């Protein structure tokens, strides 16, 4: 034994040292794909499938963007024309009037086009975003539980939220980018056609911008990425501080965490500022290039005017265009990173959409109705989460309509899996599970759910009122039904003591209730569902013996007229069952009623005589010892 027992004073370091050796807040980030492709045809096709229903509106907005761009191009030309032709000193104003009329027409077009385009693009992007989210959510309702078992909720949420949002940015900007591209080419064309030589001279600054951007882009991207990373790390630490606040206060970690968070937030500030420097350094560069172009136009254009080779209006138009020239280049380079992000997000969204639905209704699946007989059959069932290691091995049994069967066995014996199969959470590897005489694979899942009510060991409540939680998806249940169910499970009393009774809103999945109370509500919920078959994973762990008794009584009412399959832990429940099925290591080893099993002197009898109130209370090693002994004999 080491000399450092738990008796000595634990504080071995200077408590004022604000940077303890092993403390962290938030998790280390997981490197994600950043510098990916900006264009991935497969992903684009998938995204397009979502845009497709709105394609007419997209075509309309692309058209509007083209019109908008054309008007943007035309306006300086009209002004130039007005100056050159309409404003001859002392002349008449007819040409000017025409020019102004043309201007008015262009401006109106510009107004309509920009309105149409922005509204359509914005709304379509929102629609697509919500559609994508719904498609993912719907898919997640259908995929097998084995997928959900493996996947963190947080990860799915980041796809449902973050990835979808970055798609919105992409969709909104991509139509605008088309406009930018057209505008860029339009300006180049107009400049060159107005005056070939002057146009080329003006555009000479363009390669310089490209060269600068080539050098600027890699470090800038790294800086932007670092800023993004530290930001999400800081936010992660904040979320952890919120979710773990009770533990943090309990263990008095506030001071340490505050300093650690301060470091994180400060580091984030630094990277944000670096990112900002990289973004802003382009401003004077672009302005300088604009200045050079304008100076060139003035000197060269002025000389051309002097030689009579150019009209003043053209010079004015040139100056107008130059001021517009760099905007599209700037937003197009920005669009590149947006596209990269969107492709990454798109891939992650399609990953969710592509999760195979392994358990689906067969075509022409039978709908189970209330008048099926309520029997349950396991016919030579083999099942494993990993096919190599089956957790149920050739299990066969029959439950008669109205019978109550207790399923017992040590942890890992396959009880919970067997229950899950009745509801077809998973599909069997071989053999068949039949409900009411029908193979569950031939039955419509929704009708199966309506006839097989389930109470899980872990109670789960939704934000909403108590009544809503008990009613859940049984829309037809009246408040009287709800109250009756609550009364039957002995929950009515504590519910009426809540501030608003049945209308009390449960915060945070019922965290304002004790675990036992939550369990009672989940019982009431199963009762309201009024199914023919009740599958119950008895939750001795969460309910104290006192409440337990109420439930024992309620169970009798509940099971009356129903087939009951109970994963039983309590001897009271077990003894009350019509039949007991003992599972061990995935095999059915014994079945019969209490007296029959006692007679057999098998595992059940051995465990029973050990005097534990609950089978769960029996230490694992003891069970193993008995089992080994039994298999030895």
């Amino acid at each position: 034994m080491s000399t450092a027992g738990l008796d000595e004073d634990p504080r071995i370091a200077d408590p004022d040292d604000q940077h303890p050796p092993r403390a962290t807040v938030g998790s280390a980030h997981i490197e994600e794909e950043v510098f990916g492709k900006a264009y991935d045809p497969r992903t684009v096709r998938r995204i397009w499938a979502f845009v497709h229903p709105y394609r007419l509106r997209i075509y309309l907005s692309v058209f509007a963007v083209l019109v908008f761009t054309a008007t943007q191009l035309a306006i300086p030309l009209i002004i130039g024309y007005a100056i050159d032709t309409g404003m001859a000193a002392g002349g008449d104003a007819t040409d000017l009037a025409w020019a102004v009329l043309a201007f008015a027409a262009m401006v109106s077009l510009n107004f309509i086009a920009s309105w149409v385009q922005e509204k359509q693009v914005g709304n379509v992007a929102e629609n697509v975003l919500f559609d994508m989210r719904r498609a993912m959510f719907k898919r997640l309702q259908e995929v097998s539980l084995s997928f959900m078992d493996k996947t963190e909720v947080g990860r799915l949420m980041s796809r449902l939220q973050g990835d979808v949002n970055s798609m919105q940015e992409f969709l909104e900007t991509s139509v605008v980018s088309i406009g930018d591209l057209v505008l860029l080419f339009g300006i180049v064309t107009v400049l060159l056609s107005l005056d070939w030589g002057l146009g080329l001279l003006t555009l000479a600054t363009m390669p310089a911008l490209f060269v600068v951007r080539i050098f600027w882009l890699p470090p800038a991207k790294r800086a932007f990425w670092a800023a993004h990373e530290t930001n999400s790390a800081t936010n992660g630490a904040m979320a952890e501080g919120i979710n773990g606040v009770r533990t943090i206060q309990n263990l008095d970690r506030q001071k340490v965490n505050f300093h650690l968070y301060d470091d994180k937030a400060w580091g984030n500030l630094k990277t944000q500022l670096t990112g900002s420097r990289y973004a802003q350094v382009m401003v004077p560069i672009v302005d300088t290039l604009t200045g050079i172009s304008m100076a060139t136009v003035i000197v060269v254009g002025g000389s051309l005017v002097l030689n009579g080779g150019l009209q003043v209006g053209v010079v004015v138009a040139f100056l107008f265009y130059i001021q517009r020239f760099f905007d599209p280049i700037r937003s197009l380079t920005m669009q590149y990173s947006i596209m990269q992000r969107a492709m990454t997000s798109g891939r992650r969204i399609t990953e969710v959409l592509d999760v195979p639905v392994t358990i689906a209704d067969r075509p022409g699946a039978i709908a189970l109705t209330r008048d099926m007989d309520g029997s349950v059959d396991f016919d030579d069932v083999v099942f494993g989460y990993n096919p190599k290691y089956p957790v149920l091995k050739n299990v066969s049994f029959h439950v008669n309509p109205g019978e109550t069967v207790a399923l017992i066995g040590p942890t890992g014996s396959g009880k919970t899996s067997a229950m899950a199969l009745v509801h077809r959470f998973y599909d069997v590897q071989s053999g068949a599970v039949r409900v009411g005489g029908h193979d569950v694979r031939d039955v419509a899942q929704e009708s199966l759910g309506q006839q097989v009510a389930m109470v899980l060991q872990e109670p789960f409540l939704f934000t909403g009122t108590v009544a809503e939680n008990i009613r859940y998806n049984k829309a037809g249940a009246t408040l009287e039904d709800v109250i009756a169910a609550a009364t039957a499970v002995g929950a009515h009393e504590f519910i009426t003591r809540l501030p608003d009774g049945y209308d009390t809103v449960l915060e945070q999945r019922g965290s304002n209730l004790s675990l036992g109370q939550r369990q009672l509500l989940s019982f009431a919920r199963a009762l309201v569902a009024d199914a023919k078959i009740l599958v119950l994973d008895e939750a001795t762990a969460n309910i104290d013996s006192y409440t337990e008794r109420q439930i024992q009584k309620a169970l009798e009412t509940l099971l009356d007229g129903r087939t009951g399959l109970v994963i039983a832990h309590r001897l009271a429940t077990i003894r009350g069952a019509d039949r007991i099925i003992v599972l061990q290591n995935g095999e059915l080893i014994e079945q019969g009623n209490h007296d029959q099993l006692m007679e057999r002197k098998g595992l059940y009898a051995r465990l029973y005589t050990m005097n534990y109130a609950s089978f769960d209370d029996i230490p694992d090693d003891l069970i193993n010892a008995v089992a080994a002994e039994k298999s030895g004999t």
Partner: protein
Amino acid sequence: MSILTAGRRRSRGDARAHVAAAHAGKGSSPLLRITFLSLRHPVQVTIAVAATMIAALLQLLIPRLLGQAIDQAENIVSVASDTAHNGLWATALTLLAVSVARGVFTLFQNYFAESVGHHVGYELRLAFYDKVQRLSYSYHDKVHSGDLITVGLLDLDGIRMFFSTGLIRVVLLTVLIGVGAWMLLSTDVLLGLLALSFVPFVAWRSSVARLGLRKIWLDLQEKLSVLTRIMEENLGGIRVVRAFSGQKHELDKFDAASAEALRLAHRRTNTRVRNTSMMTFSFFAAMGLVLWFGGNKVIAGEISVGTLASFLTFMTILQMPVRQLGLMVNSFARASTCGNRFFAFIDAPVEIEDRPGARELVITEGTLEFDGVGFTYDGASQPTLRDISFTARAGETIGIVGAPGSGKSTLAHLIPRFYDATTGSVRIDGQDVRDVTLQSLRSKVAVVQQDTFLFTTSIENNIAYGNPWAKETRIEKAAESAQLHNYIMGLPAEYDTVVGERGVSLSGGQRQRLSIARSLVLKPAVMVFDDSTAAIDAGTEHRIRSAIRRYAANRVTIIISHRLSSLLHADRILFIEDGAIIEQGTHADLLALGGRYKALHDLQTRPVEDIDALEARP
């Protein structure tokens, strides 16, 4: 502290001072408070504002220079070509210089404006984090953690952006429009008025839009958080959803929330687009007027083409900020909405904090005393605890039993002041827990809770969470006592294995054992097990209890459990019903009493026997 860190500290400022600043101006308008916070960075604010003004003035020079150049070009025929050329060169070079300078000052403007925003954001983050940790359980019971995250992420961002996207734009627009107006009006009153005619319209539209958008923003955020909650709960409770075939029900719930949010999102976009389009149109309309009247003036010879061109160029320069006016309006709307929510959170009263002049808790005998304690939750009509009195001495183990909702956990939560007793008092060695500092109290009271929160870090850090300075041997010792060591040694990286949301997940029983190990790393004077062994099998629990009994001599141990076998060794068992102690005594006493405890005990088919005897069997 090294010189380096000292320097770093100085530039960073005092974290506590930042937090205090965020609390200043309680109750006043959020926009004022944000402005105040920005002004705490006077140098950067000054640079940003000065750079904005200079950049705006330089920008105003550009149309002047262009107009001058055009006039020079037009008159070029009438003057000597050398002079004309020199004039053009001079204008061109000035223009180039002005452009470069404008770029540089714009850089300063943007960078320092963002810097102010990021600094304010940093300070508010600290204030937010500090507040989250300070607010007592009763606050966190009422507020959904998702809503808090929204406040800390989105609302904080909305505030952070206010300086660069809101306030600085006000300066920019004021200079551009103000000085520009003066320049234009002094050149030609009529054209100047026409050129500026769109400004009042834009101002009116934007104020209307501001009100509308602000409300839509607020509603949309709310609807989006409802949607988030629905998705989170669905995914978290997927088994329940499947068990009840609730997929359709869930999709309906999702669709209803989604449709609401989408409707608002559309409304936001449409309002925004309508406003920006109308603003741009009014700008172009004004330009058309300038073109018509200005053109006529040129024809009449009243002004030069260059002057007209400079008017038009000036308007082009104004077009960008006018478009940005929409963004600025958005920024104001967002900052005030976000600010309202954020500061409402910052201003929330902290119900449990150190009393002025609170002293350190001093442990002498290690006696815990409940003296006539009553407790009523906020908004509850019935008290949860009534007149609870008992005394526990160091070395004693107190068991607490009762029906769910009888107040067992609440009782435990009063000791470390997660809640404060409504009546009566809880004392440790004669010191009322409300009179000592929270830090000293909580370092001496360890509550092992029902639900264990795992932090995404190594299992070692998780165990040492309450005392990150603990020696490794101590951590291992704690893990051994909690019967977790062997499991840990089987993990891929042993004590360095990362657990939690992004790491290895632990079973319910393992989590509870980790929670016990966490408390054992500390050296509490009072240790409370709040139904914290429910997911641990009885044999393991028994081993844990024997392991920690060795260290229990100097502390009060309180075990709240539904499992009577956990309480067998308690020196005293309190039976609680409806918030009051109705029976107390040892297991044997209570059985002999033949009251409620006995009844509860008999509810089980078989009496629970001493596990020791069973374990002793070969």
